[in-house]
């Protein structure tokens, strides 16, 4: 949302306020049962509001365009050891970075464009709500973290892409997952882990378990960190037993996203 036409001026003119009063009155006179906000729409609006409203004190100026760093191409190698901070923690992350290093050697073709396909209604609705939350975070939080996923060689992630969006101030985030294999919920689930530079990096923060419904080529999954995250520097999706685990063996890492 940018451009002058989208601006809400600081001062409403009295003309506009009066028109607003009359419009509200006209609407009240003619409202019917049809005018109830559809529940699905209401839930999405609420989900977005609950992200935006707590961010209010740190809002960017109204007409500011939030410029995000370009998302690297999916086929780009993962460079997790690029920054000094990452290098310092290299020894601690051990197995996670070994998986990341494998990615750097793993060449693959460009990702195929994918489309959202029909999902079961509840999953589709939750994904749509998460998508709106993601858009809202990107629109209002200038300090947002947005990183592209890099798939590992795990069979679940062949051709997978997308990104992860995380707001430290809101402690909320959304994963966008494209082409990640659907999971058999009776046998296994995906689990997100958040590496927090302010915590003991041997123990990443549990970001919750989630499913990719059959037939879904693009899903949006909300991130609900179990504990506060001071400074997220890497996100990892693992394959775990149903319900997830407290400490991952890190045997199967599907996706990684590192600053």
């Amino acid at each position, binding site marked *: 949302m940018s451009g002058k*036409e989208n601006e809400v001026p600081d001062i409403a003119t009295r003309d506009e306020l009066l028109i607003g009063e009359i*419009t509200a009155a006209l609407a*009240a006179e003619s409202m019917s049962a049809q005018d109830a906000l559809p529940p699905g*729409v209401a839930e999405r609006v609420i989900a977005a509001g609950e992200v935006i409203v*707590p961010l209010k004190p740190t809002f960017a100026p109204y007409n500011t365009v939030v410029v995000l760093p370009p998302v690297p191409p999916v086929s780009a190698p993962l460079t997790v050891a690029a920054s000094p901070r990452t290098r310092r923690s290299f020894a601690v992350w051990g197995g996670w970075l070994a998986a990341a290093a494998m990615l750097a050697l793993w060449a693959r073709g460009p990702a195929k464009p994918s489309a959202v396909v029909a999902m079961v209604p509840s999953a589709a609705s939750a994904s749509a709500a998460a998508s709106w939350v993601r858009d809202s975070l990107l629109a209002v939080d200038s300090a947002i973290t947005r990183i592209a996923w890099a798939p590992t060689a795990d069979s679940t992630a062949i051709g997978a892409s997308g990104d992860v969006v995380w707001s430290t101030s809101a402690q909320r985030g959304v994963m966008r997952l494209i082409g990640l294999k659907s999971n058999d919920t009776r046998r296994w689930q995906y689990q997100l882990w958040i590496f927090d530079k302010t915590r003991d990096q041997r123990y990443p923060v549990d970001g919750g378990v989630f499913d990719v419904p059959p037939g879904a080529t693009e899903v949006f999954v909300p991130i609900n960190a179990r504990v506060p995250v001071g400074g997220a520097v890497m996100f990892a999706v693992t394959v775990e037993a149903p319900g997830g685990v407290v400490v991952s063996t890190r045997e199967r890492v599907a996706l990684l996203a590192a600053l």
Partner: protein
Amino acid sequence: MSSAAPLLPRIATGDEHAVRECVARYGALIWSLVRRWSPDARDAEDAVQEVFVDLWRSAARYEPTRSTEAGWVAMVTRRRLIDRLRRRQRAVELEPLPDDFDLAHDEPSDDARDDRVERARAALRALPEAQRTMLELSLLHGRTHDEIAKATNTPLGTVKSHIRRGLQRARAMLLHTNDLHHASDATNEEHES
């Protein structure tokens, strides 16, 4: 709607618990406007999202002494809908306000604020049918003056005149309760070409 405690000040302070209440209170008002202005359901859903994002972001600009909360919400909604209409129809000639619609000296008192929407409804009921119809088409349905002229088979100048006079009458009645009585008496004066 007008008598309930305002929610926007709570939104402005970052109270996320007010979000659900705000959607419950104003969802129908916004949806009733949005679905009339939007060409299809998908567009309406997008518009609702944009309107509420506007509300979340601009809640601090609401001044309870200047308008009712419902009126302010309707104003924000209308601004957003006009923006969207202009984006859809770059050349649209939407005239939300007559050029000579002047409110230079109206400063509503706090006493009058709480029941302003109710008085607006009363004022609208007192308007001549043609004025009310054209105000509805313009404000509720987002029709341009040209579109209203064609839809009602009325000369464009008459449409503009009805809308201008309807707004002026409504304004006068909102500001001066006694004018509600005068409005009925003066109705016959409003039938111009």
